[in-house]
């Protein structure tokens, strides 16, 4: 499926998705992050916790995504990245994301999020090593794990820290072997 077709598909599904109030969503997420900061008291732990929470969300969300988008297997990782950027982000967050800076082996790329709805209103306290939207990394990792792709996902640039764009680096580590299924097939 070509890139523009994915963008159209994303747009179509976005029309059909149920919406919630953006401020409600943003403030809920903000309250959660601040509560985590208060509870865990260590920013590094907060980053990890957000990623873990995202992972659980991703593991659940992937089925919703596949069911509503009707997307079939992707042939290569480049296609996967494009589907995430153009369909998944559009579908769940209503924003379009750009895929850029592929490496030579086509196993890692950057997702450029120009407009991150999680960070509306947010202003980080100075000198704090928090990746505020780290939950997104977790969601991507969890979702891809469910479709047999082990990836690493992390923030490289963050507008909250003064960068001009949010950049999420997405690195493919391995294809998870589907061993259980083969065993069942033999029986």
């Amino acid at each position, binding site marked *: 499926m070509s890139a523009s077709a994915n963008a159209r598909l994303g747009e179509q599904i976005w029309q059909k998705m149920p919406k919630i109030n953006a*401020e409600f969503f*943003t*403030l809920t997420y*903000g*309250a959660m*992050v*601040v509560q985590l900061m208060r509870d865990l008291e260590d920013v590094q732990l907060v980053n990890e916790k957000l990623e873990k929470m995202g992972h659980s969300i991703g593991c659940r969300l992937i089925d919703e995504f596949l069911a509503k988008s009707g997307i079939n297997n992707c042939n290569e990782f480049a296609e996967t990245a494009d589907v995430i950027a153009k369909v998944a982000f559009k579908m769940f967050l209503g924003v379009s994301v750009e895929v850029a800076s592929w490496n030579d082996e086509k196993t890692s790329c950057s997702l450029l999020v120009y407009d991150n709805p999680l960070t*509306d*209103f*947010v*202003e*980080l*306290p*100075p000198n704090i090593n928090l990746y505020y939207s780290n939950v997104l990394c977790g969601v991507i990792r969890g979702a891809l794990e469910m479709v047999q792709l082990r990836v690493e996902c992390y923030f490289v640039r963050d507008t909250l820290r*003064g960068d001009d764009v949010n950049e999420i680096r997405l690195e493919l580590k391995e294809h998870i072997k589907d061993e259980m299924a083969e065993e069942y097939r033999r029986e």
Partner: protein
Amino acid sequence: MSQFSDPDATGPMAQGVAIFGEFVENAQGVTATVAVIGKKNEPLYLRLFDEYQTKELYFQSLVFVSLDVIDECVERKAMQQDMYLGFLCPIDEYQIYGYMTNSMIKFVVVLADVHRLQDFELRDFFQKVHAAYVEYLLNPFAPLDGDKIKSARFDAAIERHVATILERPPPAPGPGAKA
């Protein structure tokens, strides 16, 4: 009352009077002051717009004086829905205007006499400042318990809005200050 001043100061009024003497010569020095006062009349924000920021105590005392007028205003206008309190009082060569939200947050502006602003301009200005304050409060990291407002974004918004009413270019943004 003077939470802005450092404890070593000899008292805001004494300094205010002392400053007053030299101040007349520099009437153009400070053209506007914007203050945000919290629910319990605690100062949340005070910003002077001048070349040299030395008259803070003087303006702080002006703002505090105006709080009494606001109280009177509120009693008088208790039945009204309007948050814009309008012209509060003249002090020296300044005019003080006020605005109070339904949550008892007060915005006070001290303007030099030379700026003859129309009522609707000020109303518009206060609404913009109110909007900036709301946006500041929506930041989940913003403290709720009456702490001073420390936000580059709020600073930038105030600078922008003051620049529009005073019709002069905003100062060059400092590091980290983003529109």
